């Protein structure tokens, strides 16, 4: 009995003044959106939410509560992708409180006031849901971009029959070395290459750590029976390497990719213009 009467005033209000409240809600939200979403789009979106909130918050419908969370999640995700700020996203929900409060004040119904307090805290929870989903969606966007960046920067290309090229661009850290190593070794197995050229023209600086990573990659390739050539060693980098006392040992190093390719062609005994199977 109490459950029903608790929100009787408010639900009557929400039901009878549906159009006014929804209109006011859309109006407040539209003001914060500064024309990036049209009032019609908002009306459809918020109209759906309005119906769900009516059923979930005031009617205590569990199924509707689930749907409401899903709908809010969907809205915050699309807002996050469109580049809205978290405040703008959360305001879309909080604005409903203002719209309802204005009507409650106008009706001067004290019972409705008491109900409004409870209603308000429920709406706050919903606002937090949007905020959480928003943050999660942004995190996802960042994670996706990181992954894309990693893939972008580590291509393994076939330069000739039996010769692979790995143009390294950007700083080599352990995460990237791992990716480079894995993709290089996979491609070695696929193509059965005898020589791999690691081109470090695009690596801005070589310190002991980067050198260590390069050596590891070369060792791993060697364990699979492939010789590695390091090319693209610029004058400053040569100086740094010597100054740091890094030993590249037996690994062949060349100044340019062209030199390395010539060396590799010579090693594999391939002659340009006489490609097997070409």
């Amino acid at each position: 009995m109490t459950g029903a009467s608790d929100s009787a005033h408010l639900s009557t209000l929400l039901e009878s003044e549906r159009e006014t409240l929804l209109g006011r809600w859309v109006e407040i939200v539209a003001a914060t959106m500064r024309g990036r979403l049209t009032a019609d789009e908002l009306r459809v979106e918020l109209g759906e939410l309005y119906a769900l909130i009516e059923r979930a918050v005031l009617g205590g419908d569990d199924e509707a509560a689930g749907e409401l969370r899903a709908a809010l999640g969907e809205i915050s995700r699309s807002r996050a992708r469109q580049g809205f700020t978290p405040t703008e996203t959360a305001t879309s929900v909080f604005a409903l409180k203002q719209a309802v409060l204005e009507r409650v004040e106008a009706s001067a119904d004290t019972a409705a006031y008491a109900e409004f307090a409870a209603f308000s805290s429920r709406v706050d929870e919903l606002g937090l849901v949007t905020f959480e989903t928003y943050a999660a969606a942004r995190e996802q966007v960042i994670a996706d971009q990181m992954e894309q960046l990693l893939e972008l920067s580590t291509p393994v290309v076939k330069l000739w029959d039996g010769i692979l090229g790995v143009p390294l661009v950007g700083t080599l850290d352990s995460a990237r070395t791992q990716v480079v190593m894995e993709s290089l070794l996979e491609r070695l197995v696929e193509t059965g290459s005898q020589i791999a050229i690691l081109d470090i023209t695009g690596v801005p600086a070589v310190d002991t750590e980067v050198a260590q990573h390069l050596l590891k990659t070369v060792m791993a390739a060697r364990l699979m029976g492939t010789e590695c050539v390091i090319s693209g060693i610029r004058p400053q980098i040569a100086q740094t390497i010597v100054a740091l006392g890094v030993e590249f040992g037996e690994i062949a190093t060349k100044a340019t990719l062209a030199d390395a390719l010539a060396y590799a062609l010579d090693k594999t005994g391939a002659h340009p213009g006489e490609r097997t199977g070409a």
Partner: protein
Amino acid sequence: MDRVPILKIGEVLLVSIQVDLQDQTVLALQEDLAERIVATGARGVIIDITAVDIVDSFIGRMFATIASMSRLMDAETVVVGMRPAVAITLVELGLSLGGVRTALDLEKGMRLLGAPLPAAGPGALDGR
């Protein structure tokens, strides 16, 4: 206990490891191999580890031990068919297998040892 079979192809001994290597198996293999090298006068040893998914430092050291052992008996060792994951593990363990030669597959390993390969029919060399 499993024993790893040792096959003779011309002047080359082929050890194809198909089972999970226990430490005991490894020690038995070293013994068997040393005897077979002397008995057959082999010039080369090929260890095929295409089927090996997991290695530890003990097995990593085995390759180096077999290689030095064979070298004493004038046979050269080539490890072939190492998987990318295995190569990465060995490098992370700091084992670079200094004295061991390596090849991508059995055929390349045979060629590395200068062992005669079956006559190259049409397409035989393009099978990469």
